[in-house]
């Protein structure tokens, strides 16, 4: 007795109003605050493990510590994905909602043509994903993360893993266009799912004096 695919739920309880977008229960709240935090859970998240310096690694074309936007052919149609060098021989591919299955099969096909050992694992539901946007997002993160995030040390496109509020977190500097189209500092934070709500609350608390506000999710959000 097959049935409709149910609504997916983020580990982070959506701020009111709760709406459905791309099959996910998300927050419909809109904020224009200078410092905003958004739950980006609906994004597809696929983890890859492959030998360093191998064909798969070369194909992904992003080294550990950096991230890059790429346009991929996935089954029927294209998708803009963010490929992250998340660790030594470890990558994370973020894509638009509902693309995880296609991303996985594309990656599996690529892996198949190399004769390397490659793990392609869909972690769309297994991780929490937040976006922190605003000129002072670095100041907020400086309260919870010990790594130097100054532009020189951590420019746009940088990717690193460290402890944020004591939780192992992938930090990706991924600036976005601000109101006047000028790039605004923005970070993606990616951690193990069950700590998502805690991390979200911790950042809200730390950012209170900086006026951080919750901004709902709008697809594609990448």
């Amino acid at each position, binding site marked *: 007795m097959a049935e409709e695919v149910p609504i997916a739920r983020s580990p982070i309880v959506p701020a009111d109003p709760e709406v459905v977008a791309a099959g996910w229960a998300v927050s419909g709240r809109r904020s224009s605050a200078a410092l905003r935090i958004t739950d980006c859970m609906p994004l597809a998240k696929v983890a890859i493990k492959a030998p*360093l*310096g191998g064909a798969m690694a070369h194909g992904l074309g992003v080294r550990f510590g950096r991230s890059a936007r790429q346009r991929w052919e996935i089954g029927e149609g294209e998708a803009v994905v963010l490929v992250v060098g998340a660790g030594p021989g470890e990558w994370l591919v973020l894509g638009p909602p509902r693309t995880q299955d296609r991303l996985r099969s594309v990656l599996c096909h690529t892996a198949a043509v190399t004769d390397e050992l490659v793990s392609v694992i869909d972690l769309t539901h297994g991780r929490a994903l937040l976006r922190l946007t605003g000129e002072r997002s670095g100041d907020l993160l400086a309260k919870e993360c010990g790594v130097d995030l100054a532009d020189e040390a951590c420019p746009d496109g940088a990717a690193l893993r*460290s402890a944020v509020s004591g939780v192992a977190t992938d930090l990706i500097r991924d600036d976005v266009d601000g109101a006047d189209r000028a790039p605004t500092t923005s970070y993606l934070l990616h951690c193990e799912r069950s700590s998502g709500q805690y991390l979200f609350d911790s950042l809200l608390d730390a950012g209170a004096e900086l006026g951080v506000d919750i901004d709902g999710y709008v697809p594609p959000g990448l």
Partner: protein
Amino acid sequence: MIVLTCPWCGARDSEEFGYVGELGARRPDPKAATPAQWRSYLYQRANIAGWTSERWYHRMGCRRFLTVERDTTTNEVRSVLDAGGLAEDQ
């Protein structure tokens, strides 16, 4: 909070890492080892006051096991290498 210069992640606070222990004797052949040999491997430590080679794990970062040279009297760190010999250019 000392700094460990992780070969993968760069200079990071020691809080990000887990300390495994000094690099003791290699693991004896489990089939041939006598109780004395095995328990020396299990329990005996050089516990050097000075430069020591030890194992750390970058738990919050690259999640690689590392070989660290540290002076146990000053906590000065001289070198940090990937324990499995893994490198970007292989």
